[in-house]
C-alpha cells in the first residue's frame, strides 16, 4: 500500500531543514520526498503540521522481567506511540538484569507485544555489579545494541577496563553513567542553597565531572566506543568537548527533564521531581540546552522510569528516583523550541537521528530508503497535562498539571499507523 502525505512541514534532521513538502511511503519505507503522488496512493493532507522521523528514545526502563505492574512492553509501546516515539531502546536494569543471552531472548520475545520497535541494551557486567563482564559477544549476536550497567557505577576500575578492552574487539558500544559514586553516595539533590535549606543531602556537580574524567581516561586507554548516558552539569562540558576534539569515539546524552526543569522545581519535597542524577541549577540547565543546540550533546532521551505511587509517596530521601517520559518527551522538547533555543531539525537530530546513528539503526532519517517511522505533530497545540491520561502503567510525571505545547497527531512505525489522536 502506498501512502502519500502532502502539505506537511518536513523536519529533516540530516539536512537541518524545515520546509513544506510531501512524502511518499511504500512498503514500510520512505520512497520519495516532494514527488508527485503515485496513482494508486492513498492521500493524506497533513494540514501544514510537522512531519518528522519518529523519536528513538534511548534508555527506557520497562518493568519486564520483574516489575510488570510498573510497566509492560504493551503499555510502554502504547505510551511511546502516543508520544511519537517509534523506537524504544530499553534498559537492562530489570530484575533479574538482562545479562545473559537467555534473558535477552526472553525480553525480545515479550517485546513483540509493543506497537513500536523495541531494541535492547544488555548489562555490561553480570548482575550489573561491575565485577565480571557479561558474554558481550553472544549478547551482541542475540541483538543487544549497546552494553550498560545503567546507574550502577563500577568502582572496580580494573574490571571495567577489561570489559571495555574486550568490547572494543567486538566494536560494541558501551554506555556509562558518569558519576563518582563515593561523592554522590546518599545524595537526593544537588548541592545548593535550596537543597541545604530543605535539609536534603546533596551531591556536588563535580561528582559528574570526576566520573566523566575517569571514563574518558579509560576510553583513551582501551579505545572502546563510549556514550555518556547523561551529561547534566556545565562543568562536564569542557572535558566532553576535549575528548571529542581529540578524536575519541565518544558521544553524550541528556534527559529531557534536565533540559526543562531545575532543582527549584522540587519545591515542597515533590518526589515526582526526584531524578538520577538530581535536577541541577538553572545555569546548568541553560548550559545543557546550549550544548544540545551546538551539537556537543548528541542525544536527548526521556530516561522513562516508571515508579508506582507507593514508592513515590514517601519522604523525599526515601522515595524512588526517576520519572515516566515516553509520552511527554515531545511536548516537553517543544518548550526548548518555543523558547527559541533550539530549532525543530536540531531537536530531531538529538531525538531521532543521532541515537539511531550511534546505535547502528536505520531509523531517524527523513530520506528516501529510510524506514517509514514517522511522527506527525502540531508544535503549537496547547494542553494541560493530566497524569491520569497517560498510557503508561505508572503516572509519575513531573509535568502533571502543567501547561504544555505540542501534540502528537499520528505515529507510523514501518509505514503502519500505530497512533491517531482523538
Amino acid at each position, binding site marked *: 500500500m502506498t501512502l502519500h502525505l502532502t502539505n506537511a512541514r518536513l523536519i529533516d534532521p540530516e539536512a537541518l531543514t524545515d520546509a513544506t513538502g510531501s512524502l511518499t511511503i511504500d512498503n514500510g519505507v520512505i520512497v520519495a520526498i516532494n514527488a508527485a503522488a503515485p496513482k494508486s496512493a492513498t492521500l493524506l493532507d497533513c494540514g501544514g503540521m510537522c512531519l518528522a522521523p519518529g523519536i528513538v528514545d534511548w534508555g527506557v526502563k520497562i518493568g519486564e522481567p520483574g516489575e510488570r505492574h510498573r510497566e509492560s512492553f504493551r503499555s510502554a509501546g502504547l505510551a511511546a506511540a502516543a508520544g511519537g516515539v517509534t523506537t524504544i531502546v530499553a534498559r537492562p536494569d530489570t530484575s533479574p538484569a538482562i545479562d545473559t543471552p537467555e534473558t535477552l531472548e526472553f525480553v525480545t520475545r515479550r517485546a513483540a507485544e509493543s506497537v513500536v520497535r523495541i531494541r535492547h541494551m544488555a548489562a555490561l557486567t553480570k548482575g550489573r555489579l561491575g565485577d565480571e563482564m557479561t558474554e558481550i559477544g553472544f549478547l551482541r549476536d542475540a541483538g543487544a545494541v549497546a552494553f550498560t550497567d545503567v546507574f550502577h557505577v563500577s568502582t572496580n576500575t580494573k574490571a571495567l577496563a577489561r570489559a571495555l578492552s574486550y568490547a572494543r574487539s567486538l566494536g560494541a558500544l558501551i554506555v556509562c553513567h558518569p558519576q563518582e559514586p563515593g561523592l554522590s553516595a546518599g545524595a537526593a539533590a544537588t*548541592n*545548593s542553597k535550596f537543597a*541545604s535549606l530543605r*535539609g*536534603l543531602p*546533596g551531591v556536588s556537580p563535580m561528582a559528574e565531572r570526576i566520573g566523566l574524567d575517569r571514563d574518558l581516561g579509560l576510553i583513551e586507554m582501551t579505545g572502546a566506543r563510549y556514550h555518556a548516558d547523561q551529561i547534566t552539569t556545565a562543568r562536564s562540558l569542557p572535558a566532553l568537548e576535549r575528548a571529542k576534539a581529540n578524536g575519541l569515539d565518544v558521544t553524550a546524552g541528556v534527559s529531557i527533564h534536565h533540559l526543562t526543569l531545575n532543582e527549584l522545581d522540587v519545591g*515542597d519535597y515533590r518526589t515526582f521531581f526526584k531524578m538520577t542524577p538530581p535536577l541541577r541549577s538553572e545555569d546548568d540547565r541553560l548550559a545543557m540546552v546550549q550544548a544540545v543546540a551546538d551539537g556537543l550533546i548528541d542525544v536527548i532521551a526521556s530516561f522513562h522510569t516508571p515508579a508506582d505511587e507507593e514508592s513515590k509517596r514517601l519522604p523525599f530521601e526515601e522515595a524512588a528516583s526517576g520519572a515516566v517520559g515516553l509520552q511527554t518527551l515531545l511536548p516537553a522538547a517543544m518548550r526548548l523550541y518555543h523558547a527559541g533555543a533550539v530549532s525543530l531539525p536540531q531537536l530531531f537530530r538529538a531525538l531521532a537521528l543521532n541515537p539511531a546513528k550511534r546505535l547502528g539503526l536505520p531509523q531517524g532519517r527523513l530520506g528516501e530508503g529510510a524506514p517509514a517511522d514517522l511522527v506527525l505533530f502540531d508544535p503549537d497545540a496547547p494542553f494541560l497535562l493530566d497524569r491520569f491520561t497517560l498510557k503508561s502503567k505508572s503516572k509519575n510525571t513531573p509535568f502533571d498539571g502543567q501547561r504544555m505545547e505540542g501534540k502528537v497527531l499520528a505515529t507510523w512505525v514501518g509505514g503502519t499507523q500505530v497512533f491517531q489522536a482523538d
Partner: protein
Amino acid sequence: MTFRARHLLGIEQLSPDEIVTVLDLADRYVDLNRRTVKQSDVLAGLTQINMFFENSTRTQASFELAGKRLGADVMNMSVAQSSVKKGETLIDTAMTLNAMRPDLLVVRHPSSGAVNLLASKVNCAVLNAGDGRHEHPTQALLDALTIRRAKGRAQRLTVAICGDIAHSRVARSNLILLGKMENRLRLIAPPTLMPPGVEDFGCELYDDMEKGLEGADVVMMLRLQKERMDGGFIPSEREYYHRYGLDAEKLSFAKPDAIVMHPGPMNRGVEIDGELADDINRSVIQEQVEMGVAVRMACMDLLARNLRAERGRAAVGVMV
C-alpha cells in the same frame, strides 16, 4: 494580631508579623507557667497526639506539658518502636491516626520534609517538632523569645551561630527567623560542617571562632550531631573543642554582655565548656527550656483558634 497558618511546618512559612504574634502570646504564657496553678482551658476538649519517629525526651516533654497546661487531651506515641517496624508507611500511620480525629498532631521525623508530606494527608493542625535537617520551628521561636527577653529586642542584633550547622535543623530555622527579623547573622564552623551553598545564605561566614565572635550580642552554640554524621567531618572531639568549643576565653571576644545559648542536649567539653554553660550571668540555656513550654503553648493556642474558625466556616458552608 496576625496568625494565618494552618500548620506550623517551618519558620519559612511565617511572616515577621506572625512571629511577633507568637512571641507576644508566649510572653503571657510565661507568666501563667510561673504561677503555682498553671491551668488554662483554651485547648479543652481538643486531642493532641505527639508522634515521635525519632527519640526525644526534652521536646516531647515540653509539648506534652504545653498541651496539658492548656487543657488538651494529650497522647504520646513512640512510633519509633511500633508500627514502623512492622513495615507500615508514614502515610498509613498518619491516615490511621487521622481516623482517630485528633486536633493537633505534633510530629518529629528523621527525614527532611516528612512532616510536610504528613500534613498534606491529614485534616488537623500539624506542628513540626523537627524533621531531618530541615526545620525545628518551635526551637527557633523559643530562641527568639529568650533573646527578646534577655536583650529587650529580637532585631538588629549580631547573632553568631556556631558549630555543626550542616546537620542542624535548629540552625536552619534560626537563621531563617533571625533573618526575617533583620538581625546580622554570622555562621562559625569548620568548612566540613558548613552546609553546601552557604555562601548564598546572606550570612557572614567564619572558620575562625575568635574573629566570628567579635562584637556578637548573642552566641548560639549547636550540638555536634554525631548521629547524623557518616564519618570524618572533624579529626577528633578534642581538636574540635580546642578550635570551636566555647569557653570563657573565646567568649571574651564577644560583647561583654553577650548571652550564650544552646538548644540542648549539650556535649560538655565538646562544643561548650561545662562551667560556662552553668554561668547564670552569661548562659540562658535554662531560660530556653522554660521559654520552650510557653512558645509551644502559644503555637498550639493559635493553631487551635484557626482550626476552630476553619471548622466553623465549613459547618455553615462558607467557602474556605
